């Protein structure tokens, strides 16, 4: 555990602050490129720097709220936001967030028999949820990519959504923008799951978007836009809850913005110049590497709780290995993206120069130069 400045807030030296900015930048590039919030990288990254898990989640969810607000506005202008669906999900997701905050806060206060290990239970819990959920998401995405590459088949199937629709679980609500009729019970399940995960690990979109596509049958663009609309409110509500508990470190939020808002534009530019299949492949591999990174840290938390008998000096090694793996995932992903961005940018510059030279030659031939 890093040195504390006040209650559970760590002391931020220049090196740590720069690492948080770097985390924000990498998370921002990945976020702009993948379309997710980037929390899957930033939350464990901050935990590796010694930030208690609950504060890492609280600070990140606050950071996510501001970003989602801007993104949601842009999607709204493109007609990709089903506000009615968003508001229905928000109402339920608040309950999910509240449950998540309560569990996190409760676990954060648990200490072992010797009065030490405070926060380890929450860290373990957050890490386990992270590993389980993102393993499923990363593996599914990788399978989708490989299937698409091999057989040229279409995207996600709507079989599950149609099967659920056929059950006709009353009452149902019609959503005009998404053009779907959905059972209230399915909405409750999706909203609760999305809110709970946003509140637990700061990752909501990874569940909300696939759930809207697969379970509700919403078109992909509308699912993404509506999720951002949802994320804006969930982020605000999550931030509200965490700040009431005293778990938002505003310094971390500000440092994340320094990197992420720069990275997000670069990542978004990357989507214009990289093929979709490559985007999905890079995304799934980064997620799976992040999962491995978090899994490496799990024995450390188990030891801190007295549930695993290993030498305490392994903590440093496990933490370093976890940090290294996370950085490896983030930096290699970002390098792939930046390489493509720079290559495309240079190609465009060369093309314009060549065309300009041609235009000058033609003008000279025409006697117009």
């Amino acid at each position, binding site marked *: 555990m890093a040195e504390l400045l006040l209650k559970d807030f760590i002391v931020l030296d220049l090196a740590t602050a720069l690492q948080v900015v770097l985390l924000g930048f990498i998370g921002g590039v990945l976020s702009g490129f993948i379309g997710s919030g980037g929390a899957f990288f930033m939350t464990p990254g901050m935990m590796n720097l010694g930030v208690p898990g609950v504060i890492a989640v609280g600070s990140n969810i606050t950071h996510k709220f501001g970003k989602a607000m801007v993104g949601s506005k842009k999607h709204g202008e493109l007609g990709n936001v089903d506000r009615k669906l968003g508001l229905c999900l928000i109402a339920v997701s608040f309950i999910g967030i509240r449950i998540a905050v309560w569990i996190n806060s409760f676990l954060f206060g648990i200490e072992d028999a010797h009065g030490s290990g405070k926060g380890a239970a929450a860290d373990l819990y957050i890490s386990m949820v992270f590993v389980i959920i993102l393993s499923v998401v990363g593996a599914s995405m990788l399978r989708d990519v490989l299937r698409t590459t091999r057989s040229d088949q279409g995207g996600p199937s709507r079989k599950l959504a149609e099967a659920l629709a056929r059950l006709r679980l009353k009452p149902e609500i019609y959503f005009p923008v998404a053009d779907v009729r959905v059972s209230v019970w399915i909405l409750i399940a999706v909203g609760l799951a999305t809110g709970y995960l946003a509140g637990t690990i700061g990752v909501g979109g990874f569940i909300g978007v696939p759930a809207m596509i697969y379970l509700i049958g919403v078109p992909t663009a509308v699912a993404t836009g509506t999720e951002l609309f949802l994320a804006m409110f969930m982020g605000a509500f999550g931030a509200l809850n965490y700040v009431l508990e005293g778990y938002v470190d505003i310094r971390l939020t500000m440092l994340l913005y320094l990197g992420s808002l720069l990275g997000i534009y670069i990542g978004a530019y990357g989507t214009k*110049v990289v093929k979709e299949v490559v985007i999905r492949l890079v995304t799934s591999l980064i997620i799976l590497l992040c999962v491995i990174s978090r899994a490496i840290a799990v024995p450390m938390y188990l030891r801190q709780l007295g549930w695993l008998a290993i030498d305490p000096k392994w903590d440093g090694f496990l933490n370093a290995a976890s940090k290294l793996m996370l950085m490896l995932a983030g930096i290699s992903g970002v390098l792939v993206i930046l390489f493509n961005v720079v290559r495309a940018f240079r190609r465009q510059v060369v093309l314009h120069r060549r065309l300009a030279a041609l235009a000058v030659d033609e003008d000279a031939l025409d006697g117009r130069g």
Partner: protein
Amino acid sequence: MGLVCISRGSYSRGKELAESFAAKLGWECLGREELIERATDAGIAVGRLEMAVVKRRQFSEALVLEKEHYQAFVTKELCERAIRGNLVYHGRAGAMLLRGVSHILRIRVVEDLESRLLRVSERLGLSRDKARQYIDELEGDLHRWMRTFYNIDWDGYTNFDLVVNLESMSVDGVATALCSYAQLPSFQETPAVTAALENHLLAARARIALARDQATYRVRFKVTALNREVSVAYEPSDAGVAGEIERVVRTVEGVDAVRCTMASTNILWLEEQFSSEEPAFDDIVHVAQRWGAGVELLKLQAAEDGEPGEPREAEVRRVDPDLGASPADRGRQGGIEDDSGVETAGAGTYGGDDLQEVWGELARLGVAGGARQVEADPRELSRALDRSTPYSLVVVGDVFRSKGSAAKVRLKRELGAQLSEALRVPVVGVQELRERYISRGRELVRAACFGIIVALIYAAIFTHQKEILALLLPQTTVEKVAAVAGLLIFVPVVAFLYGKVTKTLLHLVGIE
């Protein structure tokens, strides 16, 4: 040349009507089923497209390419047959592929639910409930098909010239009435329509050639044609095949010149009179180059009768596509302008054809995204636009030139609102383009101000860490309310201010 497109719903006797109508006119009748068979024979996996729509699958890249190939194939078949003779086509929405081409009679056939239920029950031996479910599913599939392929609402009746309800009329009676309708001047052949169809045909043939070549079949292209010149736009991620495009398109009969543009998006530019000498030209090229966009030109020509009506694709006079030729040589090129009866307004540099001249200039600068001339009341324009093209910006130039200044301002504002609603992208005037997307001065000053505010905020936080963090550890209710309110206001404000600063900085280096 005559072309009638009948859009039929499921079990609504549209096919019967089309066949009767074609027989009475003595025209060729082509059904969607025959077209699909021909497309399948040509190697297009129409079945996979249908299944993807029915199963509500998201289209993979491969399916998107298959969709483009199929649309090009249908366009080619319709244009070829229409140019060769007269055609009645019955299917889903074939006419949507020929948007902007006037003189196509587009009919939607509907019938009451009861009659359709009865027909389904009789033919398929289904109970009433099952028949209802069957029709609902078919209609749902049709809606999705229209949305996926043409980005239109199947129930949007403004997409058709006529909606015929067969509930209380006989097929024969309606077919007879339609024969009179088809004789109206609005649906008669003109050289302008033939030229527009030829442009569509050439673009479709070029797209098919690209879809069938080993080097280019995996790439998405936007192909347009204008008087034997073909413009091909491809995305930056596919720059590797750029060298192959001209080779492939040159193999298509009737292609005189090929223009390639690397573009990840499109800017639509509307004018009544184009000129590459105007400052607007430089501004739009500047923005297009920064964005990596292709510029699509749309020349508006007021309808001859001056009344609002259906947009018609007017003929554009032919000029020599050889950019090396002298302006004088270009001016001598004839084409079919003498037959058109449509005057091309103004006198541009190249034989009076301002549209072609500006298109040529854009091509030389690598940002040409197509060109069209539409004879229409600008207020009806949105109906002529291709809704499936991903535009990022619409620039409305000097239109409504014949109106007074106040009327011009009002009409332009209304046109902007209409286009914004139809395309869901920003619509700006030339002046606004400069102010919002080009003028660096004001943008830089604003970013600098925001940067200073952000720097002060960060300095305040990091020089008073303990005090700020203490505020975020509220104990009393008042403190809690203050902490929550402060955070929820402060965080988005910082995100907004710093976001503007980074955006401006990246604009400066050309990343946006």
